[in-house]
């Protein structure tokens, strides 16, 4: 007789002490953010999709189309084309196609580029109903931003 009684009382106590934790939670500050009205700041090292870096001295892209990043990408997302402009010592990029549908944000390309010509963007609001929007020409984007 004693054991079942102890079980009932002990069990009831365990439920009450659990309740106490839940009730205490009501008086603690909220931990969530009301997205989309508020959003969080992305950390400095956040890995978004890649973007080309502009050379502050010339205002042009740093990239010289050496295609190292293209080779390093495990998923073949990158296609770089370059051309030698008249009078220039080395090539400059004319097309930098990123197929973001295949990109796994691994960062191999950023690490492979020794001239720091690409970096991660901080964009993460990237939903779309059109798949083609994710095949982006980063060079065109850079040019468009410059204007």
């Amino acid at each position, binding site marked *: 007789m004693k054991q079942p009684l102890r079980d009932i009382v*002990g069990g009831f106590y365990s439920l009450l002490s659990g309740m106490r934790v839940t009730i205490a939670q009501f008086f603690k500050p909220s931990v969530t953010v009301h997205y989309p009205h508020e959003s969080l700041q992305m950390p400095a090292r956040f890995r978004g999709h890649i973007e080309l870096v502009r050379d502050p001295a010339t205002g042009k892209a740093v990239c010289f189309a050496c295609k190292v990043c293209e080779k390093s990408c495990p998923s073949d997302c990158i296609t770089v084309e370059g051309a030698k402009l008249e009078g220039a010592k080395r090539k400059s990029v004319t097309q930098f196609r990123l197929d973001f549908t295949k990109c796994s944000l691994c960062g191999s390309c950023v690490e492979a580029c020794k001239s720091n010509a690409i970096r991660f963007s901080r964009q993460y609001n990237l939903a779309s109903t059109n798949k083609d929007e994710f095949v982006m020409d980063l060079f065109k984007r850079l040019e468009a931003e410059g204007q």
Partner: protein
Amino acid sequence: MAVAQGKAPNETFVLNLGPQHPATHGVLRVKLTMDGEYITRAEPVPGYIHRMQEKMGENRTWAQYLPNTSRIDYLSAMAYTHGYVGAVERAAGIQVPPRAEYVRVITSELNRISSHLVWFGAFLLDLGGFTPLLYAFDDREKILDLLEGITGSRLTYSYYRFGGLYNDVDEDFLGGTREFVAQMRPRLGMYRTLVTENIILRKRLEGIGVITPEQCRKYGATGPVIRGSGIAYDVRKVEPYSVYADFEFDIPVFPEGDSMARYLVRMEEMGQSLRIIEQALAKLPDGPVMAEKVPRVLKPPAGDYCYAVEAARGRFAVLVVSDNKEMAYRIKLRTPSFSNLSLFEEVSQGMMLPDALALMGSLDLVIPDIDR
């Protein structure tokens, strides 16, 4: 099938659990043959999200395969990357600087806690309790923020490199981790009051789904499953890798073998991980985080190399076969969830359906880890 005339039919029926079912935590199908509420046979049918992770290793360079390793068990990506870089470092004879090893331990252990927290929330969700998930995700969020700050990613970290780390940890991370360890200790006590001592939970788990040590050995179960059956098998202790030999920590073992034992192992393990992190933070040496002279194109000498780590779900081992080329000849991944799932068929026989779901939850299956 003709039913014998005049007798009550001894009928069984087939019940599909999954491939889309919340209790299987992913795309796993279990074909259950039911006799009323009791299971007579449970046949797991994996393969719905098989991605040929092993085959992919054979057609991309050693470094290109790195991101794949954080997509096998996405909840403990750090440990999996550790296993792979460990195998390649062993193959290529690369020495990792001590600071990098310490940071690897800290991040792996943080990742273990976050993985156990997901299990904790999801497991209790299976059992019908919703609120604990929210508490667990509150704590897990802090870990994800810390790891995101240094790796740039919240889940698929790929933070380790052959010979070291992607980048060094900063003061924000170290301070944040110290703060987290201090905060997390009382939270573990809170979990005990909120959940572990709860009478409903105890009634649902105690004595349910008993796995014997023999069954664990037979199916190669590892991790919290084998430790919940009374065998103190932990790769960190039996084959110490990285710098784990430098730390003092215990391996929680519970001999009962029921779902409650596996639950308790994981809860205790979180406390032990905090202990390891604390020691590693105190001892963290200065210095580089990348070995010198790691060739850009790796071509490890021909041979077989194996490296095992203790991931959140058990022993994860990588076997790489190199034939001195830019790509591996073969990469074999030994994943814990696959072995842990194998014993489900035998153990679940004769169990009631809700109890079998409690058993499955206590195995902590991650489906991409089974299907890889």
